[in-house]
């Protein structure tokens, strides 16, 4: 079929189709993005799920305080501890160690010693002109970024002058060559040591490029695939450089929180350098000029009750240091069950660094409340809107507990007796098959008198003799009055029709109750009709091994007795004898058998084929049989063909001679 559209035209058509498809996809994806955005905006703001608690900070300090054996570990320990606001055990010893270990010819050694000595008060490392030359020589395009960083840091720590612009040029050149995360982070760190007049714009842009390389894990964590240390060093470098250049870092609030989660989720660190990086990141995030993540946590469980009406909240930075100038405000407190707002725009009061609010003053009913609190007072605060779940618990009291035995036909008056908690009813109650045992009671809040409907209100019957335990649920009616009725005849299957004395307990429990109740109310004698009295309790045999199941193999079909089969075999073969007799009587013979090779071969072949059938039945499969049959069959066929042809010739010869003779005789 020849297309009647020319090739260029077809090309244009296909492009048109493709562009239409692309625009459709773009439109749909933008719509999808819009939907996602609205969903995201409507969703909760992210809050940090990990931070360093006081014990974590202690552990970090402990790891950094371990004795150091070389300059690098000394540097990590001394500088790390100083970032956390602590100091090494023996500062003088440390200083001596630094001076002793210093190798004035090595840039790394100079870096470690210089930085560490800066962290210790009154510790000066001696320098010479050679030192300065070595350090300045390291600042060039040919050294690695790490070398440049160490040289620049050493120079600045030792108070030696350096040319910031040259450093910037070298850094830019090195970044182009070493494009990995650690190198660029080190470049950022180097830039923090340079003069503010230098051209740091290009290096500042690297923060955004690096942030784009972070991996988002489930929307909760943001980290480099190089690991925790790289992420922590990046955080430190980004914020230190932003502070130095007085430019807000291009990190969004959610990204900052995700970085906090990544860096502070690990609570035991593998190496000193890892601990050092975490300490630096913690210090950077708690005291930079732009973003300070705030942690709002409860002191103890978030529960208030009449005995403890005050909700205590702690507002700290990620190092668990309380924030100096913060104000806490409840934006709304909403009951989870009824969705009614109980409190709105209520401030917390600060006492001894803990924020307090007397929530019971608003007289909330018992249950769960969703609090939205906001931390204000500092424009740097990040994640300052937090959602909390607060539980208000109370005590329950059982009132108006009435026990009665009611006749089913209600001809005899009911006998009701009142029992007070926690006492037990004086007499026992008897109920047989035409009586019902009934229990009515009310559950109220002990403090406010409000009726309660706890999650668990069970009535338990326990037979002391047989160990049977039957538990029923008591349900409240529309007026919150609890009613329980036991129909002896109807429920006899649960009791296994075992008559006897049952001890009655009332069980009341709920997550918001401070005093769950297990109350032995009374003894109930139950009489059942037609007592089956099983010997032992059924449940005992439930967990014993069950009887073995023997596998029954498929039984072979019943065969007739051999006598019958043999008889019938003989019977079926007997017609063959009959056939032979008949043929003999008819005079069939093999006198015409010509001993020509083809007929011999034919008969032999035919016999072989029949023999092959027997062998097929006993040994072979179809494929083998067909193979042999093909061979024998073709031979037999050829031989038979010849033999039959000869026979035909002979027959026609006979008949023609016969006609010849008859014609001759007729003619005669």
């Amino acid at each position, binding site marked *: 079929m020849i297309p009647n559209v020319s090739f260029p035209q077809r090309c244009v058509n296909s492009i048109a189709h493709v562009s239409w498809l692309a625009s459709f996809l773009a439109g749909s994806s933008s719509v999808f993005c819009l939907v996602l955005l609205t969903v995201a905006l409507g969703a909760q703001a992210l809050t940090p799920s990990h931070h360093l608690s006081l014990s974590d900070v202690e552990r970090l300090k402990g790891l950094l305080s371990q004795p150091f054996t070389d300059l690098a570990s000394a540097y990590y320990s001394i500088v790390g501890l100083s970032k956390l606001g602590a100091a090494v055990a023996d500062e003088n010893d440390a200083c001596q160690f630094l001076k002793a270990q210093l190798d004035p010819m090595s840039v790394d050694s100079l870096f470690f010693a210089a930085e560490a000595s800066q962290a210790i008060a009154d510790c000066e490392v001696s320098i010479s002109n050679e030192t300065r030359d070595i350090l300045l020589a390291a600042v060039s395009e040919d050294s690695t970024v790490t070398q440049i960083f160490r040289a620049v840091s050493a120079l600045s720590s030792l108070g030696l002058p350096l040319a910031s612009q040259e450093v910037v040029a070298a850094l830019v050149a090195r970044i182009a060559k070493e494009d990995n995360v650690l190198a660029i982070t080190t470049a950022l760190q180097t830039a923090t040591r340079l003069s503010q007049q230098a051209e740091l714009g290009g290096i500042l842009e690297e923060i955004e490029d690096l942030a784009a390389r972070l991996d988002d894990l489930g929307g909760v964590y943001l980290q480099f695939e190089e690991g925790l240390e790289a992420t922590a060093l990046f955080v430190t470098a980004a914020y230190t450089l932003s502070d130095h250049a007085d430019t807000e870092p291009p990190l969004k609030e959610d990204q900052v929180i995700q970085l906090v989660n990544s860096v502070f989720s690990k609570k035991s660190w593998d190496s000193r350098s890892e601990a050092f990086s975490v300490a630096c990141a913690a210090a950077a995030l708690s005291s930079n000029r732009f973003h300070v993540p705030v942690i709002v946590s409860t002191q103890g469980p978030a529960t208030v009750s009449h005995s403890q009406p005050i909700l205590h909240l702690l507002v700290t930075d990620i190092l668990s240091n309380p924030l100096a100038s913060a104000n806490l405000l409840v934006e709304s407190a909403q009951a989870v069950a009824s969705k009614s707002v109980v409190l709105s725009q209520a401030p917390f009061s600060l006492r001894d660094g803990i924020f307090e609010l007397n929530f019971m003053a608003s007289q909330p009913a018992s249950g769960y409340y969703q609090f939205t609190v906001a931390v204000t007072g500092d424009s740097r605060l990040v994640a300052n809107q937090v959602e909390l779940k607060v539980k208000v618990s109370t005590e329950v009291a059982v009132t108006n507990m009435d026990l009665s035995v009611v006749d089913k036909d209600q001809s005899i008056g009911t006998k009701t007796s009142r029992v007070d908690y926690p006492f037990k009813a004086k007499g026992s109650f008897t109920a047989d098959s035409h009586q019902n045992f009934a229990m009515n009671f009310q559950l109220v809040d002990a403090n406010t008198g409000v009726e309660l409907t706890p999650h668990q209100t069970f009535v338990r019957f326990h037979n002391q003799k047989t160990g049977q335990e039957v538990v029923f649920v008591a349900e409240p009616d529309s007026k919150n009055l609890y009613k329980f009725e036991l129909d002896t005849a109807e429920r006899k299957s649960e009791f296994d029709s075992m008559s006897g004395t049952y001890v009655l307990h009332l069980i009341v429990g709920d997550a918001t109750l401070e005093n769950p109740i297990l109350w032995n109310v009374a003894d109930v004698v139950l009489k059942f009709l037609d007592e089956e009295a099983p010997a032992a309790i059924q449940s005992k045999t439930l967990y014993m091994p069950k009887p073995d199941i023997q596998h029954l193999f498929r039984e072979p*079909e*019943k*065969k*007739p007795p051999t006598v*019958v*089969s043999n008889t*019938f075999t003989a*019977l*079926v073969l007997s*017609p*063959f004898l*009959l*056939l032979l007799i*008949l*043929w003999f009587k*008819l*005079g*069939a013979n093999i006198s015409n058998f010509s001993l020509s090779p083809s007929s011999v071969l034919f008969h032999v072949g*035919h016999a072989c*084929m*029949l023999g092959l*059938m027997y062998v*097929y*039945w006993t040994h072979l499969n*179809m494929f083998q*049989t067909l193979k042999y*049959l093909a061979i024998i*069959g073709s031979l037999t066929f050829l031989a*038979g*063909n010849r033999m*039959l*042809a000869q*026979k*035909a010739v002979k*027959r026609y010869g006979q008949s023609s001679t016969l006609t010849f003779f008859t014609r001759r005789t007729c003619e005669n």
Partner: protein
Amino acid sequence: MSNSVISVISRFLEEYTTKTSNKLKVVDAYLFYILLTGALQFLYCLLVGTFPFNSFLAGFISCVGAFILGVCLRIQINPDNKGDFLSISQERAFADFLLAHTVLHLVVINFIG
């Protein structure tokens, strides 16, 4: 009534014994034998049961098939039917008979189990 049946049968038998050639009688004897064998197999199945069913089927179908092929042979070699089978000589009929039997036996032995 029975008289006429008997007279028909006796006349048939007389005609048969005189008119049919020996060759055909030989084939008829063979057919009778096959018939008996098949009938006896069927009788066994009725009396004793169908186990194993495949063997019974194989045997019975072998008898039925052989009977049919025998009948075909008889038809084809009967000189009275020469007009209907001009292209098929007696030897050819016999060769066909043998070939068909080979296939039948193959199938029967396969099925007999």
